[in-house]
């Protein structure tokens, strides 16, 4: 399946290579570089590139291209999904997945890659198993290892791979047993010029951080499970139980994991928590344009809209802008023409606005494209769909765990067309 992996940084250097079968020369990446040159934007590099003898399948994460070389038919999603899993694992291990982090931990990276694939076929991709095999580097451990010369490879051979619950480490012990669940919902929306909603959807995830000793068996139930239209589970969730009772029943992996992602059925009307008033105009023959933008909250159920960030790609003809924000700060990059305005919190009494003028290239005709406005925001302690967790119970262990549930709503791909 996967023959080799090359890691390419944003300046086009191969900084790591790993081969699982016979060595493939790194010159195969030339085809990739060619495609990269052709693509206008980094994300426009085609994920699958055929070459005379190989196929290159790549993903772009954290400005690093992970280029897998394959030689014969294999479902492309299989490789793509695996590469993303690799990135997730690196992130899990090193906190960040950057070129520097990978270079610093090149041995751990190599050990991980060795365990994750055997002859190009995925072997152990479960983070709990990997962490038993290869301990993640921490500052303390690095220091200890340097002094004592001990290793970061697990002394114990892991048994997780052999157990009935391969996603959970065995022999987990905590002094404080705690389980936290974050219900995070994202609104994807397209709002048209007049402010009416073209499409709006709510995607949610439940991310868990479970630190419980032993082999706890948890059940999580919702007040209104009917809201969930389409769900995908972590493998630990018992599917039949969900089908029958709409209850999440699972033996959790140890640590952080995504328990569930869901989609709220589109029958329910989606509440849009912010509105935008905008007036972006260019006049024919004039080298000036007007820019006015006002934000306001709506349907927020009394919760504050925070961390608001507005960004917009202005037309190429715009040379510079001269704007006046009522709060927050704005930046404009004259090269990429990207305007971004860090608003902060919306105060309903005094709505934030950004007004001013844009200067255009002299003599150029008025741009006929309209910029789109992208908005990011956060609302704490609320799930916009109204989803509520009913209760969380634990079986199989004697102690009383500390349980916590947090709700949050965020903007996903929230666009306003002008």
């Amino acid at each position, binding site marked *: 399946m996967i023959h080799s992996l090359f890691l390419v940084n944003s300046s086009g250097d191969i900084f790591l290579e790993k081969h699982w079968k016979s060595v493939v020369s790194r010159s195969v990446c030339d085809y990739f570089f060619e495609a990269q040159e052709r693509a206008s934007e980094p994300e426009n590099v085609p*994920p699958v590139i055929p070459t005379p003898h190989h196929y290159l399948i790549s993903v772009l994460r954290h400005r690093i291209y992970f280029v897998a070389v394959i030689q014969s038919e294999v479902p492309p999603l299989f490789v793509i999904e695996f590469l993303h899993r690799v990135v997730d694992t690196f992130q899990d291990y090193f906190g960040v997945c950057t070129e520097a982090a990978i270079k610093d931990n090149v041995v751990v990276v190599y050990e991980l890659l060795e365990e994750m694939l055997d002859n190009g076929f995925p072997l152990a991709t479960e983070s709990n198993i990997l962490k038993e095999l290869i301990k993640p580097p921490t500052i303390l451990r690095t220091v200890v290892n340097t002094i004592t010369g001990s290793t970061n490879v697990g002394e114990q051979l892991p048994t997780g791979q052999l157990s009935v619950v391969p996603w959970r480490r065995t022999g987990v012990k905590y002094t404080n047993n705690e389980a936290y669940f974050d219900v995070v919902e994202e609104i994807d929306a397209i709002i048209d010029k007049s402010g009416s909603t073209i499409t709006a959807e709510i995607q949610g995830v439940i991310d868990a951080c479970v630190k419980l000793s032993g082999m706890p068996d948890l059940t999580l139930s919702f007040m209104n499970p009917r809201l969930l239209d389409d769900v995908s589970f972590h493998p630990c969730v018992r599917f039949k139980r969900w089908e029958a009772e709409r209850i999440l029943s699972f033996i959790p992996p140890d640590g952080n994991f995504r328990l569930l992602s869901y989609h709220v059925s589109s029958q329910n009307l989606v509440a849009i928590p912010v509105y935008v008033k905008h007036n972006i105009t260019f006049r024919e023959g004039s080298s000036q344009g007007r820019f006015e933008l006002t934000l306001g909250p709506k349907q927020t159920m009394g919760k504050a809209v925070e961390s608001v960030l507005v960004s917009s790609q202005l037309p190429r003809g715009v040379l510079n802008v001269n704007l006046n924000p009522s709060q927050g700060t704005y930046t404009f990059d004259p090269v990429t023409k990207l305007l971004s305005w860090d608003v902060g919190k919306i105060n309903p009494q005094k709505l934030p606005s950004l007004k001013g003028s844009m200067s255009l290239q002299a003599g150029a005709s008025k741009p006929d494209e309209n910029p789109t406005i992208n908005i990011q925001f956060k609302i704490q302690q609320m799930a916009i769909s109204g989803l509520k967790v009913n209760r969380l119970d634990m079986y199989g262990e004697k102690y009383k765990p500390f349980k916590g549930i947090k709700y949050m709503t965020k903007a996903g791909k929230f666009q306003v067309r002008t």
Partner: protein
Amino acid sequence: MQRLLQLPASAVNMVKTAQGQEEAKSPVLTPDGSQATWYSAVRPDELRHLRAGGEVEDAGASAEEGANTGGQAQPLRHDDLKEMLDSNKDSLKLEAMKRIVAMMARGKNASDLFPAVVKNVACKNIEVKKLVYVYLVRYAEEQQDLALLSISTFQRGLKDPNQLIRASALRVLSSIRVTIIIPIMMLAIKDAASDMSPYVRKTAAHAIPKLYSLDPEQKEPLIEVIEKLLADKTTLVAGSVVMAFEGVCPERIDLIHKNYRKLCNLLIDVEEWGQVVIINMLTRYARTQFLNPNANEVLLEEGEEKEFYGSDEEEGKEEKVEKKKPYVMDPDHRLLLRNTKPLLQSRNAAVVMAVAQLYFHLAPKAEVGVTAKALVRLLRSHSEVQFVVLQNVATMSIKRKGMFETYLKSFYIRSTDPTQIKVLKLEVLTNLATETSISIILREFQTYIKSMDKDFVAATIQAIGRCATNIGEVRDTCLNGLVQLLSNRDELVVAESVVVIKKLLQMQPEQHSDIIKHMAKLIENIQVPMARASILWLIGEYCEHVPKIAPDVLRKMAKSFTSEEDIVKLQILNLAAKLYLTNSKQTKLLTQYVLNLAKYDQNYDIRDRARFIRQLIVPTDKGGALSKYAKKLFLALKPAPILESPFKDRDHFQLGSLSHLLNVKAGGYQELPDWPETAPDPSVRNVEVMDKRKEKKKVEKPFYSDSEDESRLTESADSDSNTGSGSESSSATEESDSGSKSEDSGGESESEQQEKPNRKNGLELLKLFWHSRVLFVCILPCSAQTISPTFSSLKTYELLHRLTGEGLAVGYCFGRQPFVRDPHMVTVQIQFTNHMDTEARNLRVREPRLQSGMRIKEFPEIEVLPPGETVTTVMGIDFCDSTQAANFQLCTHTRKFCVSIQPPVGELMAPVFMLENEFKKEQGQLMGMNEIKETLVLGEACQSDYAIVQRVTAAANVGQVPCGSDQEFAGKTMTSNSLVLVTVITKRDRTAQLTVNCEKMVIGTMLVKDILHALSQ
């Protein structure tokens, strides 16, 4: 990298400080002499290299080329590594290995260190060992001879008692691409394939394709191994072996038959990567074995779909005759569809895609829709995932438009999408457009046209063109919209519009002469060659509609002819020729002029065309025979172009495959076969349940004794429950999935039985396992002696000797299954054999003389027993937990015999399922008087754990406690249900301690005696 170098860096400091002084004074260095020698061996110039190493890495890949050659040019550095590898400190070895791995990662050649590294293959330190493995696998191919040095280590590893070490030894051994060890690999794989541990078997499955790629000659023996592993019942192995199957012998579809149902049932518990491989393989399998569920529809829609389904000629003729009979789905086909459906909820995009393609290729048309929701969900994933999914959705949406219609808005384009995603979404939107949805789609398209991404705008214009051709109602609207675009400022947009308008006009040119006029005016401004060419073609083609403008355009073009692009020149020639034929008065000279210009053009195509046209249209003395047909040739009615999706007919590739994505057959792609005309024999997939149980028993017995193997135990329970539910469900399948929605919302009753066993907690699993074992026990008696020597206690006791019985011999044995009519009774099997020459009649029990409390359930009277025949019957006796004999009379039609049955104490009980902690708890309550301990010397033949289990279970009807640390057995007496707990603890020197805990002290004492006897034999 820097962190890696911290050890040497600190060493540097130490050496620096130590340089002036005596080394012995350094507190760190004193305790260990060898370390000190190394540090002193590091000369200052080497230290410079160490530090330089760090800088080189930081400098990045630009310096790498230099460093690459520098690597060889710096033998010093490698000497230093070699020295570290040769030292006897693990920490130094580790440090050296880490640096070597870092070199490998950067693509530097580290092969000259091979001899030094390979020596450390047997190092005790796990991390060093692992890194050595990494190195070996990378360089062994280049250093075949030296690599052989390491082989013996792996061979030793293959025999290790720890399954993980066996597995990792096999993994590395099979990854070393050295041809000389092929026979060793083959042997190792064969051994590992029958290893007790499923994990080792999984590794064996992984090793198969490795060996095959190294030496394709080994195909046949490898197929044997694959066949064997395919029969494996553990989820761990299933994915890997199917992977091997796909790599080595995907054509051997016959190997799948027997394992088909098992694979379907195991599927949900296989790890996600294995699921993908199995689903793809089963898709192909199903295409060869089942009938097309949409066959009837094909017949209906033959007109449209014939290209695809009817591509084979032979299909056409038989079809009509056959398809008359109603289609009934094969239960196995249904089983596959049903068992894959829950996987649509997987978090792994590849699994979801695999299920979606399976449904697309195999499911009845009405059911394919269930996958749409999951596919739309994937659109929220990473852009690479989106890219692949959209490609597949594009293909699906052509064939099954309805399934995505409700999700139309999910394909709306955002300005932040990458261009390649935008274009694919457009493709899908265009495919989905219908009379009802077209208006909103067009409104969407209007906003897209204002986008800043010009490539995307061009694609949108093409999409509008396609919508217009496909849906007649909106053609005029689209055309008007496109004409408006002609005044767009961006030339690319205008050009693209011209091209599309040209195609649209071709469909109904009469009504649009003003558009043609408008476009003729545009030729002044548009510079894009394709657009110019399109306009010229339009004017030429419809010159009758614009009789005044056309000659003028030609005049202008004649002026600029020499500076035009080739395609434009060709169209100018075309225009000239057409005008000459329709309006020769005005254009004769112009045409001549253009033809002359073309005659001397640099491009031979244009010269050729000019010559050809001249001959054709200009009458010459030779009187070209064709010139009278010139009008027909040039002004023939041309068919309007059909604007088709580039994704049309891509579904002859299996969806989700690389080949489908590239629309080219990739290496190793397995064609998706066409449905068969008649279904092959479905019975090939039948697996005889009885046989399976027998086999299972034989396999299973040894591992009772093997405490290492907990997982195996549970897993075999899985497979057992699965085969059970599988055979059941496959027989009653039809009713299920028809209403897909209802299944989503409401709980399905039958779903219960298929509860993922893997996810149950341990207790349930073990109970399940217990049931399965009880089952075997139940089945046993009828053929116990032949099946297994395990239950040797089923020996037959004599009730009536043939001499005493005057030719009638009667024997009995204890069946050990629960007596059906009364749970307190012991089952006694009685076997009559008639050795007389005449038949015996009316065999029955009479006048039982029993101790108080004892009860007897007689066997039904046997009317006739012909001479020489044997008959077996069953009776139940409640012995009241005592070993007192039950006396009764056995009567025939002529005689009566007084007989008695005396049970061994071990038969007065029945096994109980118990977990170890329960066992310990119960044992704690039965201490003191109730506990009897004996030490014994184990007999010759019962040294192994396995033998002990056999002996104990033979002596008494008790059940072993699963996964117990010692040999523990539990049972309860038949009548009073008192627990009987037996523990055997083996000691080193062939001795063992036997403990029996039982409330009934008499039973306890007797049992101890019996077991002692059994074990010390």
